[in-house]
């Protein structure tokens, strides 16, 4: 289902709201956001001088994020929507169009599908950074006592642990920059429609007509 509320106010049959994010996707997004912010806070606040017992909160939040990411992947696979985030030839044409328009100080001629190239790149940036932290964080769980096992820091060689820690730290540092950019763009006036869609689910028909190519994001009329 991609449209909401049967008819528009002028009596036409076209729905005036178009579903952009279904409720389960929105819930997963905001759970993931809360987890990432908690993980960054528990990781970096002690480093900058705010000392508190952070380890338990950090790893438990990481487990919740792992579950949210798994559910997201399962939902995408089950619904066959993998391709909506895929970068294809049309996206390369969009990049050329945006670059040319920026140099000419003009508006781009092409309209994106459901997601712009920038939104796809942010998603992929999050995917790489979050998956790296989750995989390395899962290995690091071997070094602490959990309800499921006793710590065993000798499962990997010291040099291997060093690589695991470097990857975990590098991905976490990258997440700081990506989160900053993501929040900045989410709060920009011209992007608030996407933030509202992530809160309430929909964009208006007018926003859809103005900002999206209906041949690339097919919705019910």
């Amino acid at each position: 289902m991609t449209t909401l509320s049967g008819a528009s106010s002028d009596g036409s049959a076209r729905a005036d709201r178009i579903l952009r994010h279904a409720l389960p996707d929105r819930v997963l997004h905001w759970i993931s956001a809360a987890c990432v912010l908690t993980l960054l806070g528990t990781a970096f606040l002690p480093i900058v001088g705010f000392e508190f017992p952070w380890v338990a909160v950090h790893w438990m939040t990481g487990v919740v994020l792992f579950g949210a990411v798994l559910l997201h992947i399962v939902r995408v696979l089950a619904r066959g929507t993998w391709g909506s985030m895929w970068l294809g030839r049309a996206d390369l044409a969009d990049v050329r169009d945006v670059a040319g328009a920026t140099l000419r100080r003009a508006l781009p001629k092409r309209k994106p599908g459901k997601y712009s190239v920038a939104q796809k790149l942010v998603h992929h940036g999050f995917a790489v950074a979050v998956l790296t932290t989750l995989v390395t964080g899962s290995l690091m769980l071997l070094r602490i006592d959990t309800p499921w096992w006793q710590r065993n820091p000798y499962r990997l060689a010291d040099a291997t642990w060093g690589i695991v820690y470097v990857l975990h730290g590098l991905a976490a540092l990258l997440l700081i920059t990506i989160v900053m950019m993501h929040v900045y763009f989410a709060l920009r006036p011209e992007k608030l429609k996407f933030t509202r869609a992530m809160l309430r689910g929909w964009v208006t028909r007018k926003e859809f007509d103005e900002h999206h190519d209906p041949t690339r994001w097919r919705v019910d009329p």
Partner: protein
Amino acid sequence: MELFRFSRDVYGRETLQGMSWDRLWVFVGVGCALIVVHAVYRLLFAPKQR
């Protein structure tokens, strides 16, 4: 400013410990710089959005 943190193991060998946390402010700074550059571009140079 070091890129990585190292320590010495019980045999005195240098062991990789992880990223140097001095780098934290580089990533914060890059985020701030990108935001400022984009905001200035949109404010002063970009054409009005549709």
